[in-house]
């Protein structure tokens, strides 16, 4: 698994689209001829990956929004997985 730094600014990968689907009550990731239905936490993370916010920003925002702490390791692990699967990318 690749190392994800706090300063990494992940974005939804080119050719993919993240959107909320009311019919599935979930965020889904759409790509050519396929779709991934995300669980609640994955949806919450992915919907904050806009290429502007850093991983540290995303962690802080999630902790604030959900009144939780200690999410950094989970968020980094998910971002790393999503980068490997090409759901997310890091632009230059």
């Amino acid at each position, binding site marked *: 698994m690749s190392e994800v730094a706090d300063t990494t600014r992940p974005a939804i990968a080119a050719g993919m*689209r993240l959107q909320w689907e*009311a*019919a*599935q009550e979930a965020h889904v990731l*759409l*790509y*050519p*001829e396929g*779709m991934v239905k995300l669980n609640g936490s994955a949806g919450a993370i992915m919907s904050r990956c806009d290429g502007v916010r850093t991983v540290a920003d995303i962690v802080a925002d999630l902790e604030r929004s959900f009144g939780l702490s200690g999410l950094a390791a989970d968020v980094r692990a998910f971002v790393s997985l999503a980068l490997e699967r090409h759901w997310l990318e890091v632009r230059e």
Partner: protein
Amino acid sequence: MNSPKPVGPPLWLLLELTYRCPLHCVFCYNPTEFARTGAELSGADWLRVLREARALGAVQLGLSGGEPLVREDLEEIVAEAHRLGFYINLITSGIGLTEARIKALKSAGLDHIQLSFQDSTREMNDFLSSTRTFELKSKVAALIREHDYPMVLNVVLHRHNIDHVGEILDMAERMGAQYVELANTQYYGWAWLNRDQLLPSRAQLERAEVITQRYRERLEGRMKIYFVVPDYFETRPKACMSGLGSVFLAIAPDGIAMPCHAARMLPGLELPNVRTSGIREIWYDSSAFNRFRGDAWMKEPCRSCPEKHKDFGGCRCQAYLLTGDADNADPVCDLSSHHGLVTQAVARAEAAAAASAPAREHVLVFRDHRTSIPLVTGARAEPAEAGP
């Protein structure tokens, strides 16, 4: 009996916008009677289908045909689909994809283009000899890349081109393809008519896989290659459409709604038409879409099979074409008492390859208005003798 699973939304919507096509592919899965089907839906009809399907939760949209670029209102259809929140895939031969049109499609919100390889002999020969077709595909590929779409190439394989898989991948590389799908022919429609001329031998298949693997290693990180094995060489059937009526809804040019691309051929299936029924009623209430839901329709060996919820008994159309009964197990399964029909077809392909019968001696039926006929007339269909 298990309590039936609740029916989910038709997540995958395929609109076959037209059967019109400038090409005449021998492996086309369009119905062989396509020229006898009714008039095409109007643009207003398609927009209504999009709105109703989206309201039910449809989200992946395929636009195909025929050649969808033949429809002059394609841009309007794309724009409405985009406004509704569909992810839009265009499946095209590239014929008619000009700079002006790709710009219009892009600004209308088209998400993805799959450039498909068409005519198995004429176009492929032309492509491999680097002539007109190669020029056309290269031009279209360049347009696709210039407009920031991933360059996705789909090539249908069969006996007469599978030995050229290396040359095909060389050409794909020169065109700058990022994804190449090498899809072996599936035997429906025109391909079914031509099956005994198209099925490769096992040796051909294995050679092609070895070559493909070599290219995969060499082009790692630049080009992703998918190789789809023809199911005739398998011993378990494909989970066709993840079960009919589960996620997939196709609408044919004449408005017929189908639970799979080829369902028009299934006897006794009263396919509803979007001209007279709403999408909600079609998906949830019509007899055609409920016919193969759950497992109550299954016969043995599927009914008591532990894998029945994995492959759903395979493909209903293949079961019908080969055994004459759509409720039978897909004979690709080696537990089917009809599996011999599949192994015999493969054996005939082996024999033909061993005799190295020149391809041109067999008559291939090119998809054409002139040759358009109903494929299935009797209770049981056999691949027709090709030619007049």
